[in-house]
């Protein structure tokens, strides 16, 4: 099972859409693609759009937490939207929603960041 990472720039926000399964094996591609886009691009904030993420484990939490720390050190924010119930449960269990706010849709996630910036 593989993972696809789709990146879209929307003004100063990077939308990251993950499709497939995010585990230890596929975490590196997320790390490299997001890191590259954040460091080289003009994005300040990130929307993680997870409608098509069918599976995630704690390796996924680790890579998301790592990119959150990078953004935060640069003064940016990360928000999460549109997750499957099993993925949302893992965010809740890990306490990650204390750091990242949750939105039902990409548009409401984007709107929340446009108010910030």
């Amino acid at each position, binding site marked *: *099972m593989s993972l696809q990472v789709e990146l879209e720039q929307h003004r100063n926000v990077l939308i990251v859409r993950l499709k497939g*399964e995010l*585990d*230890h*094996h596929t*975490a590196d591609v997320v*790390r490299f693609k997001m890191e590259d886009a954040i460091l080289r691009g003009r994005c300040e904030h990130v929307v993680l759009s997870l409608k098509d993420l069918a*599976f995630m*484990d*704690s*390796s996924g*939490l*680790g*890579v998301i*937490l*790592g990119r959150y720390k990078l953004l935060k050190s640069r003064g940016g924010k990360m928000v999460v939207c549109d997750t499957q*119930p*099993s993925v949302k449960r*893992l965010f809740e*269990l*890990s306490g990650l929603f204390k750091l990242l706010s949750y939105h039902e849709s990409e548009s409401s996630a984007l709107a929340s960041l446009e108010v910030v910036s």
Partner: protein
Amino acid sequence: MSGNNFMKLSFAARSENEAFARVAVAAFLAQLDPTLEQIDEIKTVVSEAVTNAIIHGYDGRPDGIVTLEAAIEGDTFSLIVSDEGNGIEDLELARQPLFTSRPELERSGMGFTIMENFMDAFEAESVPGGGTRLRMKKRIESKKALFN
């Protein structure tokens, strides 16, 4: 389903086998007619245990062997995930939420917490230098039983 059933599977400690392990166990579990939520929980638990064996047990050495054993007795699903790798020095510390011995690898330290949360029973045995064995159980109430 009547009677007991079991399976045993050994594979190379390679990260591409994490998805294989999840799917294999989920396919075996299917005969208990689990809910989607229960399948997701078991797949997550398998992923955590196998990933731990690969990263911590064998330090990413692909010649290591990870073994999965699953059994069904009545409505109880049992799972054993074992390796013959490095073992864990301090099991109590390893089980603490957010503890990780490998922060440089961006491990979240949530693996044990997730396994304990998603299963009804969880035991870990480990011998430093001699490997780790995780034994877990979960009751799977059949959807058919719920409807009757």
